[in-house]
């Protein structure tokens, strides 16, 4: 399923969270892939509740940030942190357009997850990598950690920005 999305819409999709720096980080990381905006992002979806499709091809339009702001952000955060933040943006887009899910809160420490999704409070773990070759290890590590600790439903979203592509799955 192909869909045009705006990073600037994330605060309306998940209004309980802060998005400004996450959106800017996504604009930086997607912009460094070498293609022009809007950026195409292939997100595979597996067992996501209320979503029948197996993938989302997101055409992501960034807001028009001043270059000075983006440059300052690049100096402020290490590249790996920017990738991590950009992954949160992709997960937020995927959850909203893949079934209308909402990130409602921050997950508790020790839960091996980052956020809570929907009123059901499903855990969501997000990881971002700059290289495609690091995707598999990141996916396997997180899936194992979550499986060991939780029997209830949880989401896992791992993305890489070399292709760029990723996977959003729900486990229960």
């Amino acid at each position, binding site marked *: 399923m192909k869909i045009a999305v705006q990073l600037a819409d994330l605060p309306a999709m998940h209004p*309980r969270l802060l998005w400004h720096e996450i959106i800017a980080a996504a604009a930086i990381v997607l912009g460094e892939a070498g293609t022009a905006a809007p950026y195409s992002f292939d997100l595979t979806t597996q067992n996501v509740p209320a979503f029948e499709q197996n993938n989302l091809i997101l055409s992501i339009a960034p807001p028009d940030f001043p270059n000075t702001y983006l440059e300052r952000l690049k100096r402020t955060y290490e590249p790996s942190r920017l990738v991590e933040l950009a992954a949160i943006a992709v997960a937020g887009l995927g959850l909203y357009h893949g079934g209308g899910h909402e990130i409602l*809160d*921050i997950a*508790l420490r020790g839960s091996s997850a980052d956020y809570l999704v929907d009123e059901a409070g499903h855990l969501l773990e997000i990881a971002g990598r700059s290289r495609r070759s690091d995707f598999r290890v990141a996916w396997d590590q997180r899936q194992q950690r979550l499986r060991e600790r939780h029997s209830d439903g949880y989401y896992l979203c791992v993305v890489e920005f070399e292709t760029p592509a990723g996977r959003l799955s729900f486990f229960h």
Partner: protein
Amino acid sequence: MATAQTTVSDMLITVKSREIQRGQLAEMRADFSSASRHLLAAAHLELVLADDYLQAGHNDLALRSRLSAASCFWRAGRVDHARQMLENLVQEHPNQTATIQQVRADLESNPTNLAS
């Protein structure tokens, strides 16, 4: 006599979540002074929420908020206070010892949660 209805404020939850986020972003920037301010604010808000949840009969959410408060105090540098809070929670909720120990183990090994 009318019974006062206890509700938990959505706005309070949102502000708390955003304070934790601000703290996390500051940790990512290695701005630990700012992180401490925001995480302390979040810790106190979690304590208010814990009481509201308790009044509303949501004991599981009250425990979660108290655990989160302890975690925020720890990350804000109030480690002794956080340890004591976690000890108290173990005494009060012995059936939740594993969950509480998991939070403490995570904080011991990675206090700023910068491993993703």
